[in-house]
């Protein structure tokens, strides 16, 4: 009971608007084979496969794990399929880690993907009559009022979102897997088209095809990989309703409680001091200051000051979204696992040009739905 969990293999695809040269099986295999290579394992070494993705309607295939079973080497093995909205990539990694933690399996392959070019994710995310009034155009339309509420509640300078977008977009250039590969200036972001006031085009995530995969093992196989493992020190998830009069959509209680839980497991009392870097689900740039507060890196109303001071930049004291984050790549179902993977890559020292020197403790974070589903893990380069 409660075995240690090690991340011994990490793989991801090159994310792009369209990966037309790949089928869905090809896309998941590109990530999975890279994770297996990193783990120095073959398909035969894997005991079970856990796959996650966001709504099946994005590709028009229902319960696609059924048709992806042989592409992921699963025949004869257990295969689980997770779906918890945008947090799914994180939740999927946690379900897979749970199999190891529980002692049910020794070596688990987990994969998350989205091939968004198969449809139009923005309109797939816009609820239709009779499920909702026709007011919301995609996730940006849903979140814009809450961003505006954040700005007005705390009297935040109106260019913080621009500064986050400049930081994350330029980080993405350091990450060869990132979808967006562009250097941007403050003026370019400011002058980009206003999509959902106050969210501009360059402050928004792209729509990507991509996948991410991890190989998770028990302690007995922790030395399998090319590099020493990342050790899981805490995992937590929380959910709250879509609409409830008492809830605060700007600073959701589920996110706070999830953070408290994962910090307690990992012995973290001051996240800004105790965590070396964080890869956090920021699909629209304004979510960085919001989540800095929600995750207790800054007091409520002061998250934007960390961004403005440069503390969250790659050379700041608490780098956020070293990989370029969701602002640079957003295959929705994979995005949460990419955050978890980047945290593990940092503590394994395999993040290349976006490596934070000496990163020993990292946070991976994902959220989904209407800021209501949260998944987080803390990884370290030392065993719990």
């Amino acid at each position: 009971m409660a075995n240690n969990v090690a991340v011994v293999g990490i793989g991801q695809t090159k994310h792009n608007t369209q990966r037309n040269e790949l089928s869905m099986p090809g896309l998941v295999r590109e990530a999975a084979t890279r994770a297996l290579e990193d783990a120095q394992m073959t398909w035969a070494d894997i005991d079970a496969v856990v796959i996650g993705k966001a709504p099946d309607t994005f590709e028009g295939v229902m319960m696609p794990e059924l048709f992806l079973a042989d592409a992921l080497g699963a025949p004869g093995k257990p295969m689980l399929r997770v779906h918890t909205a945008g947090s799914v990539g994180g939740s999927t990694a946690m379900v897979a880690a749970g199999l190891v933690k529980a002692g049910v399996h020794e070596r688990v392959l987990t994969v998350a993907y989205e091939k968004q070019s198969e449809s139009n994710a923005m309109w797939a995310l816009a609820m239709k009559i009779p499920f909702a009034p026709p007011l919301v155009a995609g996730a940006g339309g849903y979140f814009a009022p809450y961003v505006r509420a954040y700005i007005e509640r705390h009297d935040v300078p109106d260019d913080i979102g621009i500064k986050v977008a400049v930081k994350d977009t330029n980080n993405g250039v350091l990450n060869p897997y990132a979808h967006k590969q562009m250097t941007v200036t403050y003026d370019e972001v400011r002058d980009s088209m206003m999509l959902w006031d106050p969210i501009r085009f360059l402050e928004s995530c792209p729509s990507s095809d991509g996948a991410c995969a991890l190989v998770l093992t028990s302690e007995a196989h922790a030395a399998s990989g090319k590099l020493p493992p990342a050790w899981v020190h805490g995992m937590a998830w929380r959910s709250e309703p879509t609409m409830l009069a008492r809830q605060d959509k700007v600073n959701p209680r589920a996110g706070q409680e999830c953070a408290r839980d994962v910090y307690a497991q990992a012995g973290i009392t001051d996240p800004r001091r105790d965590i070396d870097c964080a890869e956090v689900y920021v699909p629209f740039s304004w979510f960085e200051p919001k989540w800095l507060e929600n995750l207790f890196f800054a007091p409520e109303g002061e998250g934007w000051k960390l961004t403005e001071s440069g503390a969250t930049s790659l050379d700041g004291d608490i780098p956020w979204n070293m990989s370029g984050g969701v602002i640079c790549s957003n295959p929705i179902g994979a995005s949460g696992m990419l955050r978890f993977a980047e945290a593990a890559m940092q503590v394994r020292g395999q993040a290349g040009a976006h490596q934070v020197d000496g990163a020993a403790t990292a946070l991976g974070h994902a959220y989904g739905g209407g800021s209501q589903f949260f998944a987080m893990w803390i990884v370290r380069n030392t065993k719990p």
Partner: protein
Amino acid sequence: MRDVAVVAFAQAPNVRRDSDRNEVEILMPVLHEVREKVGLERDDIDFVVHGSTDFQAGMPFSFVGALDAYGAWPPINESHVEMDGAWALYEAWVKLQTGEIDTALAFAYGKGSPGDLVDVLRLQLDPYLVFPLGIDPIGMAAIQCRAYLEGVGRTEADMASVAVRDRRNGMTNPCAQVTGEFTVEGLLAEPMFVSPLRRHDCPPISDGACAVILAAGDRARDLVEHPAWVVGIDHRIEAPGLGMRDLTVSESTRIAAEKANASGTFDVAELHAPFTHQSLILEDTLGIDAAVTQVNPSGGALAANPFMVAGLTRIGEAAQRVLDGAAGRALAHATSGPCLQQNLVCVLEAREG
């Protein structure tokens, strides 16, 4: 492994068309009933997980509505599988094995009535190579059935006897949908539907929901007199291509049964066999002796088959016999995908492992 037991089961009446209620309204009474059976408040449940599919509801993120059926304030420790609820129960069982939690609720819901379920299920097929062929799950089951009848030497009368058994058993289940006294001769006089399948060989389309509460160790002993201990549970998948597997056996069921230690005799077996010939395949694979094991006392999936729910219902129905003190050892099975592609086997006993 930690001792974990099913302590409560509840289900909604299975009906062809629950047109007055949406999914949340079908679920709420079931989720209240299952907790009331063991006197647990919402906050007493440490972990909640459910199974459902967006394509049945016809909208992305349809599962989010289930949060309102359960109640998610203060925020809850919660997950969701896009699988039959039996796999939600499996995730809950794993979570209990980590020692993080002592109680868990697994539930599932499915309304087959709003769309054309057979047409919707075609979307499970390989979109590049199989979907364009135009085959549907009933056609695929018919291919499997033909291979089974010709390969194993069973008959359409054997299949009809499964329907007679399940529909008769369903008469004692107030939640069953298709029930009654029929004869093999009478059923065989009916016309072919998709040869060699007649209507009675195929499952009904149902609207339904069910819920199961699991508890570990002393918590389970405190809650009920006869906990249904989960002494073995495992699931396996097979390749999707029908040409890549032997359709006359269920290899994934065989492996799962072996891993779940599902050998020996059982008082009761609840098999998730949506088609009559699949019940025969599963009984062969699992080595069930009808002389000692009562198969599908609930009526099984031929009496009611709410998609995404019916597998979890089998675990609940099998566990209920143990909870009632009527069975000492029960076998439950769940399936997913065309032609028994993915299977789960669960062994429940009155005595802990």
